[in-house]
């Protein structure tokens, strides 16, 4: 009985050697990131290329982006447990794992990003309830706890672990109340995704970021939550597709993917319409009130108007329209294009909402601020990717992530 396999029976996995080699490669990248992380911790943030004008930079973008992309977890959970889309149970595990990776990465990046990491807990202890960042930190941590709770039962389904009676029961008991956790997660996610939108929206000293009237509340909140809900599932689909490509087998049935794609499509389209309204009001009313024309904000070679086009049309309307049409989402190429565009779109939006805010000069006598991340910043941003790959690889190898895998890939 000590011979219980680590790998589930009935599924095929690559050889130990192949797996080890792959893991070694990814771990090397991870260690590079970890080294950079320790540099930042021990030597301070002078290791970065951030400066007083670029206080928020690559890391905060990465944070916002992974949280948006990890939004697949809460939204799929919402659809599965609250709306009751049962098909999605076939992809929800993966959504949870991706969410877990994204959120743990976000927390890690935040821990590197702050100047005095050992005082980081002040954000909880001495919370300023008016700050968007406080809200983000609270909900982020709580939701991360929820994601962990959602992930644990899956881990416990590993054949070896499942043999321990306590763990077996624990897994079972957690399943029993999972809907409550899921609901809590959705509740928390609505808040922190929204607050992340507010992070930039409330900066009334920054005309590029600032929104007025209903466009600050609830719009900035709404837009971020909505875009995360739209694009997070796209990222889940994207990662699933990549996993299928790499493992060379089908893992989720098409009807599941198409359902999720369709919902995402509608979310994306409605989001982008709202975003357009927001942009128009901002460009025509809010910014001119502060003495800016729209083109003032896009007057740099890097930050030109093409960016706005890319975000709204190319990565908004186009994927949205593809995904809502049956022909579009059922065509593999179009589907893949659409989800990639959606993922790029939301990442671009987060980039613009953080880095362009920093780049735009508020004083007429100042130049555009430029910034290129240092290798330490790049390494620490790549770190979560490597970490994510490791978690996904382990999960896929040892856990029953895809309920449909055995059916779709019968082992002879």
């Amino acid at each position, binding site marked *: 009985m000590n011979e219980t396999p680590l790998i589930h029976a009935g599924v095929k996995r690559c050889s130990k050697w192949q797996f080890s080699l792959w893991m070694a490669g990814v771990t090397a990248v991870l260690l590079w990131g970890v080294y950079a992380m320790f540099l930042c911790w021990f030597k301070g943030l002078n290791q970065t290329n951030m400066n007083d004008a670029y206080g928020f930079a690559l890391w905060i973008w990465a944070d916002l982006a992974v949280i948006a992309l990890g939004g697949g977890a809460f939204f799929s959970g919402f659809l599965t447990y609250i709306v009751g889309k049962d098909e999605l149970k076939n992809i929800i595990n993966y959504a949870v794992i991706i969410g877990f990776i994204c959120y743990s990465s976000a927390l890690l990046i935040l821990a590197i990003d702050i100047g*005095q990491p*050992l*005082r980081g807990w*002040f954000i909880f*202890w001495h919370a300023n309830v008016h700050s968007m960042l406080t809200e983000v930190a609270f909900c982020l941590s709580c939701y991360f706890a929820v994601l962990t709770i959602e992930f644990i039962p899956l881990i416990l389904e590993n054949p070896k672990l499942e043999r321990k009676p306590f763990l077996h029961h624990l897994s079972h008991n957690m399943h029993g109340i999972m809907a409550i956790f899921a609901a809590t997660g959705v509740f928390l996610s609505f808040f922190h995704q929204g607050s992340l939108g507010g992070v930039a929206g409330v900066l009334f000293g920054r005309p590029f970021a600032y929104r007025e009237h209903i466009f600050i509340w609830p719009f900035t909140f709404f837009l971020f939550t909505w875009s995360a809900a739209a694009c997070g599932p796209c990222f889940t689909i994207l990662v699933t597709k990549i996993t299928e490509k790499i493992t060379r087998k089908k893992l989720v049935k098409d009807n599941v993917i198409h359902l999720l794609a369709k919902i995402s499509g509608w979310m994306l389209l409605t989001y982008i319409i709202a975003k357009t309204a927001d942009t128009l009001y901002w460009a025509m009313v809010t910014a001119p009130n502060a003495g800016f024309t729209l083109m003032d904000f896009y007057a740099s070679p890097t930050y030109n108007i093409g960016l706005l086009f890319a975000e709204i049309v190319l990565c908004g309307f186009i994927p949205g329209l593809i995904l809502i049409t049956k022909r579009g989402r059922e065509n593999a190429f179009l589907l893949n294009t659409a989800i990639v565009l959606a993922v790029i779109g939301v990442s671009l939006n987060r980039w613009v909402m953080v880095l362009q805010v920093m780049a735009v000069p508020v004083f007429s006598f100042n130049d555009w601020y430029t910034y290129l991340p240092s290798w330490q910043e790049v390494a620490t941003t790549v770190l979560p990717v490597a970490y994510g790959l490791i978690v996904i690889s382990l999960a896929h190898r040892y856990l029953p992530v895809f309920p449909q895998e055995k059916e779709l890939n019968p082992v002879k």
Partner: protein
Amino acid sequence: MKIDRRSFLSYTTAVVLGGAAGSMLTPAPWKLMDDISIWTQNWPWTPVPQDGAITYKHSVCTLCPGGCGIDVRLAGGRPIKIEGDKDHPVNKGSLCPRGFSALQYLYGPARVTTPLKREGKRGEGKWQKITWDEALTAVSGKLAELRSNGRPDTVACISGSDQGTIPNLIGRFMTAYGSPNFLCTATAKDAMEQAIYLTQGRQGSPVFDIENADFILSFGAGILEGWGGTGRMLNLYGAGKSAKTLVQIEPRLSDTAARANQWISITPGTETALALGLAHVMVKESLYDRQFIENFAFGFNDWTDDNGTAHKGFATAINDYPPAKVARITGIKEAEIPKLARKFAKAAAPIAVSGRGQGLLPGSIDESLAVLLLNAIAGNINKKGGVSVLSDFDYAKWPEIKIDETASKGMQQPRIDGAGSDDFPNTRYLLNRLPETLVAASGDAPIQALLVTGANPLYTMPDTAAAKKAFDRIPFIASFSPFMDETASYADYILPDHTPLERLQEVPAAVGISRQVISLAKPVVKPVYETHHVGDTFIQIARNLGGFVKSAFPWKDYETFLKATLKDHWRTLNKKGWVEISHDLPEPLNYVFNTASGKFEFYPTARVSGQKTIPPLPAFTPVPIEGDPQRFDLVLMPFDSIRLAGGDVANAPFMTKTVDANVLLHQTSVVEINPATARKLGLKDGDSVKLTTPRGEATVQLYFYDGIMPGLIAMPRGLGHTAYSDYLANKGTNVNQLIGAIADPDSGLNTAWGIRATITRI
């Protein structure tokens, strides 16, 4: 019960869980959380400044000749802040960035903390710490040796100043020792001083009574950037007392020009022509002070000497400078010249001032004369709001020096720099001529030992590379600098002086001010390191030398000497910090001139001496600048910035911190260039270029500045140090390195306001 692996595990878990639960009910986790929180808020490496009673000490800043009164704030006896002394008559509370940085001269990595002896090659930076006894013995020994060889004149001393008791004590030492070679850094003051001597026959410091003027015509003087005592000038400007009307004439929109009522851009080097042109208009339009000219002037009109030779007078000579011609020379619009002349002449109390930037460059005698005579035709001599001369304060009533034969022979030797010789009879110091003399001399170097105090010639001298080479010929160099400056780092011995806040000294007069204000700089702290007052050091060396040299110094130490010197003033100075001595003579007596004619000489007869054929009347001859215009298409011009110290005292880290990125970027000097000029050369703002002059080259970065005349490149003085500390060294280019000296044919003083240059993209 049976304990197998499994149950052991669960029991351990139970203990841990129980422990965790229990500890939550104890103060430990909560208290620890709080303590860790405090720990993370008070890192042991973050300094905690010690508290103490706040007190103030009044003193005077000696970082420049401005003589500003300062209040030093102390906490528990520790100086923590410098502020301007509101009660001080010179600056009335105003202070410049350097004054505010004074504490960084007291402490900091640039300080020499003990006497040092060179190890390894000169300038290599390897030092051996020695005791004061060893250091004094070494210097005294060398001096004794040269004296016993009968060559005391081969000892030279370079001093930053010749004003006050410290330089005078050192001068006395040189005399008693037997060397005429006491050299001093020359500035615009020296040229103006000579112009005044030529016209009035009086020696002393030139003063410009800005306090009582209402129209300032500034020929490039940075009157808001360090000219004439920064604290004083800024205070006057702030109080609305200066610059009621300020007209600034220079080719670059300086900070002074920016605040002036009018900025007139002029082709650099043609200021003399403009001054004469203005005089021309004033004479033509009879806008001059007829009463002064008629009663007190000589040589205004044509005159005939005792031999019957007819001479042109000033009024005739300036016929050569009609507005049209002056406009051509200076690049100023023709119509502007008479307008300016009338404004100047009709102002209630106009004054014309010269001295480029902070006045670090002497400039030509013609230029100083032309500006002085412009004041003279406005009747602006020796009166309120005018130009006058402040006699050197003769508190130096020390017992007469008895010198021995060796000394007497030494003193009869000609000065190494040629000052006072037939060639340059009216000039006191010509430090800029030292390098060439040293290099030119055959056989043993004419200077065998060099003492440097209060000066940093290896940074401030034109063509510093050449100066360094010349210094290589001097076998023995001793520096008394408190800082590891360029010269100190090139010395064989360093006998560090106290820094200004540790040093007792009197400041005999504030530069440029028309009243005699003596201030006392009192030490605000005990010497922080093993340094000795330079006065004490020289007294000690004299004592070591013995004989007449020793007996020339009957004082125990510098303090005794100072007290003896200041006599009655000491008590007031010690208590109040400053005394003001009125030298004002009643008005008619002010017009007593010591010239041959007994009048103010528009035709300075004293200028004719020896074989020299300098026409006495000021004339505009374009000051030649170095370089072939074919090869060097641009002109490099240094400028002075108030945030950079370009002279003997270098920047404090705080000052460098205020410097903008369009002056210094990391290790590179940024130079100003007119965008039109740069575009013609195909260069962009921010481009890195190689700047080449006949004297050297440097990598610099371009800054497009509309406020500079096309064809010019402006580079700030005060960067490009190679010594001191990491906070100053290897930052930018020392502009002196790129420019050589050009001697004024009359005075020998340096007139090089710029040099031809060219830039090429890297």
